[in-house]
């Protein structure tokens, strides 16, 4: 399938700032908030970037994965740190499914003789 027939285009990542075209006030509030969230604080900007990378995989946002893979490298993260962050996201996602199996377990026991 050609890239033109997909919903996601890598070029669109650069247009993120344009989301305020029809609603600048809310977009400004979002970007101000976004900027504050990722600034150095109790967590370093690098730690926040690694969290963002993990979350990007959980929400499966290709733009976010592109942006935060680059960002973590720019902030000096090692490849090991990137992959551990991704696995944290995967573990939570997998765990979130598996913990629901308690419901299935309960139902099995409820239905059984």
């Amino acid at each position, binding site marked *: 399938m050609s890239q033109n027939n997909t919903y996601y285009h890598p070029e669109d990542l*650069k247009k993120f700032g344009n989301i305020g075209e029809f609603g600048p006030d809310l977009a400004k509030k979002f970007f101000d908030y976004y900027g504050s969230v990722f600034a150095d604080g109790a967590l*370093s*900007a*690098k730690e926040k970037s690694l969290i963002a990378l993990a979350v990007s995989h959980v929400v499966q946002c290709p733009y976010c994965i592109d942006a935060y893979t*680059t960002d973590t*490298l*720019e*902030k*000096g993260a*090692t*490849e090991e740190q990137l992959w551990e962050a991704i696995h944290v996201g995967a573990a939570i996602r997998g765990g979130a499914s598996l913990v629901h199996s308690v419901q299935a377990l309960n139902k099995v026991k409820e239905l059984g003789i």
Partner: protein
Amino acid sequence: MKSLLARGSELSSSKEQFRILSEVSERKALPLFAEKLQESGLFPLFPTGVDILQVNVGKLCNQTCKHCHVDAGPDRKEIMSKETMQECLVALASPKISTLDITGGAPEMNPNFRWFVEEASKLGKKIMVRCNLTIVLAGEKYRDLPEFFAKHKVEVVSSLPYFQKRRTDAQRGEGVFDRSVEALKKLNEVGYGVPGSGIVLNLVYNPGGAFLPGGQSTLESDFKRELKENFGVQFNSLFAITNMPISRFLEFLLESGNLDSYLEKIVTSFNPLAAAGVMCRNTLSVGWDGSLYDCDFNQMLDMQLEGEVTKISDFNQASLDKRKIRLEQHCYGCTAGAGSSCGGSLA
């Protein structure tokens, strides 16, 4: 790996490099660097003076790093003569110049390197050497370099792209990381990087790929912690430098398909504060044959100085101060993000 020149690559020609950068800039509708400077009120760009004399004593090197803007390597034979070094020393005597910054290639491979340092030392100037570290272990004649540097209080500035082996070796060659750590230990042994020693060891970080350097102070903390904990190595400061899209890094960008996005990135990351402090404003760059340039990057792109003085033998401070600095698209590399210079971030 051989140099671009030895491989007969078209990229060894500055004309071809300009053609590629210009072609991408037109295709992606990227503004000219001069236009960006104009928006910031900095065009034409004038020097603030000549504080640093940066002398490239040759392209001969014991390494062939993938990002090298000099296209240096063991196959390059261009070497500054003692006569040209003498001309540099005459210029260096100017009271307005505080610092001699010696670079290469591996500058220590120039047979007159030590004589040059000794003579510059007599002038009482600050001396910096861009040492690639592995040269210290490259043979008997280089083994006492740490002691020699210390004797003349030379500030050692050494590239170490990362505090781990994989990324460093990928950029600078197999085994470079281990040898660099060994050389750092030898420098530490004579006092380099040790608080209170009076001799300074600074490291240079540049990204191991098509991305920009992050915050210099955070990177410095990471490097200090990792090198100390894992290898017992100390240093003073870390300089974060952006990879310039020319020469062998341009080759990497082309081959990896990253050229367009990298150029776009450095253009969209233009920082007027960094632009006001670019190193070409207080540095004069001297080529191995005595030709003058605004910086080491312009030197490698054959962009000789504008104005009457084009050779170090004709050094004239007043005339040089009036020159207009030559600019091209690669200059975005020095003004992206926090900015980049031989001394690290600018803003």
